[in-house]
């Protein structure tokens, strides 16, 4: 119990630090959009989900905190946020595009973890197509899909307002965004039409997490850099 409280306390501190860093980035870019901050917002979003669901006593395996730690380390050591914001991003649609995308991505990760959890741990308890095994995971995918779609549509509107066309072939990320959307469209069809058995669907959802990382997180990461800890040195000495 003591350990759990301590873990929640430390998570709360990390969450506050990440939140203040993200708010700082937005403060220093508003009304424009701070670029390439998705990798910072992602662990924040995952932590908020973990924190809120923990308050509701939802059981998570250690995988989610581990994922949050890995994402935070990736954001810390592979930063790509050194580009200055540009005035084309000065619209509400760019914000909807960006934030919905991060929320959607987080939900897909959670769904992948839930699927992995069902594959590894729940297999011991229940076998076969018992509906309870994937109930939680599907909901996360549905909401992830909703946010991802909103993000794509907002991106389309932004692109039309700024460049005159809803699809502009100036950013390769357009293909990975579409690939992710089609992947989860495929998952929803597999789930709703019961095309594959539950185990295969769970593997598909778990593989989705790897796909989301490769297609949507990896391109947002920069080269390896040791973080500048000048402020920390000033603080200590």
């Amino acid at each position, binding site marked *: 119990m003591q350990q759990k409280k301590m873990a929640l306390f430390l998570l709360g501190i990390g969450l506050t630090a990440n939140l203040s860093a993200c708010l700082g980035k937005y*403060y*220093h*870019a*508003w009304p424009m959009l701070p670029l390439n901050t998705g990798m910072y917002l992602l662990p924040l979003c995952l932590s908020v989900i973990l924190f809120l669901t923990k308050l509701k006593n939802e059981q998570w395996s250690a995988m989610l905190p581990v994922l949050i730690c890995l994402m935070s380390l990736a954001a810390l050591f592979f930063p790509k946020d050194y580009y*200055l914001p540009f*005035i*084309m991003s*000065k*619209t509400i*649609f760019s914000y909807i595009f960006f934030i919905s995308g991060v929320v959607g991505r987080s939900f897909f990760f959670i769904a992948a973890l839930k699927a992995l959890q069902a594959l590894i741990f729940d297999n011991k308890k229940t076998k076969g197509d018992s509906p309870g095994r994937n109930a939680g995971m599907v909901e996360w995918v*549905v909401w992830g899909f*909703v946010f991802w*779609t*909103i993000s794509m*549509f907002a991106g*389309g509107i*932004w692109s*039309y*307002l*700024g*460049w*005159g*066309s*809803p*699809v*502009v*072939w*100036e950013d*390769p*990320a*357009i*293909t*990975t965004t*579409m*690939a992710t959307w*089609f*992947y989860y*469209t*495929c998952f929803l*069809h*597999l789930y*709703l*039409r019961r*095309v594959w058995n539950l185990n295969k669907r769970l593997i598909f959802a778990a593989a989705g997490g790897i*796909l989301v990382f490769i*297609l949507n997180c990896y*391109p947002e990461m920069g080269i390896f850099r040791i973080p500048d800890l000048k402020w920390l040195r000033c603080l200590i000495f």
Partner: protein
Amino acid sequence: MAKMFNFLKIVWKLAGSINLTIALLMLLVFDLSAGFICLKSNLSIFIPLNDVGLIAWLDTYGINYLQYTAWFFLLLVLLFLLAVNTFVCTTDKVVILFRNRFYYRSQIKFILNFAPHIIHYAFVVILAGYLVSYIFAVNLPANILLPEKSILIPGTGYKIKLNKLNIEYYKGQRLNFFQDRAINPEAEILLTDANGITVKKTISVNRPARFKGYSIHLEDFAPKSRTSMQKQKYVNLIIHNDPGIHLYFCGMFLFVLGMLMYLYRWYRP
């Protein structure tokens, strides 16, 4: 005749098969992932796609750089097949739903059952919108306007003139890197149609103006900074006539509507 009918029935059934849907969606994922690699290293091949339109692009860049653009050709084929598959499958389901309408006690439940079908049709409408855009849209990039000078919109009798360019420069402490740089450019343009009737419009970044079916977007402007060497004021406009955009936005609206209906059905007590 009966043979022909049976053959068409088989084709229709195959075209709407769920296995085909899954196969197409997975192929799209692989194709788009391959597209990312090709696009990342050869962006300059794909950028003109928006300027010259699909047919001209396929005929030039598409054919000549096939090693980098093959995925795009495959994408078009896969999207076409997916649109056909979606249409056939959804139409089958809608027909069944209509046939069974008398079994529904609640009108709302019956309507809510259309949610996935609305989403599917909306997807087809969005794809149709893209296709119409890429084939029939007229895109006129790089229209440089100097103050008090007018130019003709090519292919029309319409004139466009830059009346005023107001650039607001950032002055503050919060955005240090943006000091004295343009934060809010506003161009006042005069648009004259073939009958000589002139209207005044204001455009800005992400705030286009519409005129006789054309949309006019601010792509670039100068001077961008109060201290820059470039003192000559100008704006660079993208002029676009896109008949597919309404279809695209209509599809988008339908998709969101279908999604909301679906979520309502999902969480309905």
